[in-house]
């Protein structure tokens, strides 16, 4: 995988400028937000390089890329920096030719952005469930709240009667949602999809997508990362990389 490189930590030298014809993404192999950007890069066949950041031990130079040291950040050969995962994804769709991931039709485009609003509680809830379970706490309430959010998404698929959120083909909105659904199993909350058959069909269809497939994270490696992450081990981010 393109992003199977060791992360940059404190004391590391900053990478040089981005070569012409390439775009760089500052990322972390297990981050769902960065995952969105990597999906779009892959789906559009954009030549890119990945620089992984050690999020528990951030390089000082990284704050010149993002004021709060967050990922993902895109950097192009003109030294332009773009951040917030959704903004980065839209930038890539606008700036690069080929397959358009957002619809051309302004209303359909607006619809995808409205759908994204419906999704906004999911990242926080899935993370809270993960943390609760890892800390040995109960999370029935959180799971209930998450199931409710999934019901709302289920309703959309039912109303539209389409496989994907943007219609019968995969599009931007599906890629923007996917990273959290991929993580349900490894977070231990896959049963939150028990009452949402259309959403289960959607996840099955997503797993057939070549882009999604190419970036699927190995479950054991993810578990290894999570174990180290919750022990506050700064080596977590490089877990599973060959030495």
């Amino acid at each position, binding site marked *: 995988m393109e992003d199977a490189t060791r992360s940059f930590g404190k004391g590391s030298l900053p990478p040089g400028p981005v070569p012409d014809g390439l775009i760089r993404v500052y990322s972390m192999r297990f981050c769902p937000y960065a995952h969105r950007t990597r999906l779009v890069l892959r789906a559009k066949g954009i030549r890119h390089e990945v620089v992984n950041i050690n999020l528990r031990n951030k390089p000082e130079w990284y704050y010149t890329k993002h004021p709060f040291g967050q990922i993902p950040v895109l950097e*192009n050969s*003109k030294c*332009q920096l*773009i*951040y*917030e995962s959704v*903004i*980065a994804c*839209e*930038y890539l769709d*606008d*700036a690069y030719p080929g397959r358009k991931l957002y619809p051309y039709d*302004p*209303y359909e*485009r*607006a619809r995808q*952005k*409205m759908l994204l*609003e419906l999704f906004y509680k999911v990242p926080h809830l899935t993370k809270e469930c993960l943390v609760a379970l890892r800390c040995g706490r109960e999370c029935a309430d959180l799971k209930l709240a998450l199931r409710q959010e999934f019901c709302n998404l289920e309703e959309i698929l039912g109303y539209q009667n389409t496989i994907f959120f943007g219609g019968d083909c995969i599009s931007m909105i599906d890629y923007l949602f996917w990273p959290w659904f991929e993580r349900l199993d490894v977070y231990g909350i896959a049963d939150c999809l028990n009452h949402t058959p259309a959403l289960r069909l959607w996840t099955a269809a997503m797993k057939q997508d070549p882009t999604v497939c190419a970036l699927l994270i190995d479950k054991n490696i993810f578990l290894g990362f999570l174990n180290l992450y919750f022990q506050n081990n700064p080596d977590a981010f490089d877990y599973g990389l060959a030495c």
Partner: protein
Amino acid sequence: MSGSARSLAKGSAPPGPVPEGLIRVYSMRFCPYAQRTLLVLTAKGIRHEIININLKSKPEWFFKKNPFGLVPVLENSQGQLIYESAITCEYLDDVYPGKKLLPDDPYEKARQKMVFELFSKVPSLVTSLLRKQNEEDCSGQKEELRKEISKLEEVLTNKKTTFFGGNSLSMIDYLIWPWFERMEILELNDCVDHTPKLQLWMAAMRKDPAVSALLMEPKALRGFLNLYLQNSPEACDYGL
């Protein structure tokens, strides 16, 4: 363009379909989010009709327009509905010809969206300060607001331009303007007293035809706010 129509409330009949050649905005005369949409409609010269909604007594049919029951909502003659103020503004810019408010350049467009993110904490801070107008303990929130506003000052300082998107007014300026207008009217001016470039920006904004066409009457805003904070169903029609 009538923005002074009485609002529709619970028990009202739903409006008919939108005539061709027109776009409808469900709005409320004092809502800052709806003001964004009205600014874009005005700036782009888009023929539109306004239906004001009584937000303290919402018509049942309004939830069919937006399941969240919030304004603004756009409805076109094809019956398509668009909500979330920023999404409505971008939709209008995409669909209608004339002056483009969002840049064509993908990086400049992304830059406007990044500035918009920088602004994101301001609305809730201004709202909570407006609600606390009569209480003493606003100092913490005022400090927070000043901090957020400083980030915007920094953008103008780094860019060395009058407006947030360059030397002409563009989408990002319209998206953030409504809260600065309210800060002035409601005497939260001290929150911008350390930001000279923002003060220049505010003065420049007031000269814009769309901004000045939609400026609120200070007395009307105060009257509305007073009733709104008491949950009065008369609030949204104050001054009519």
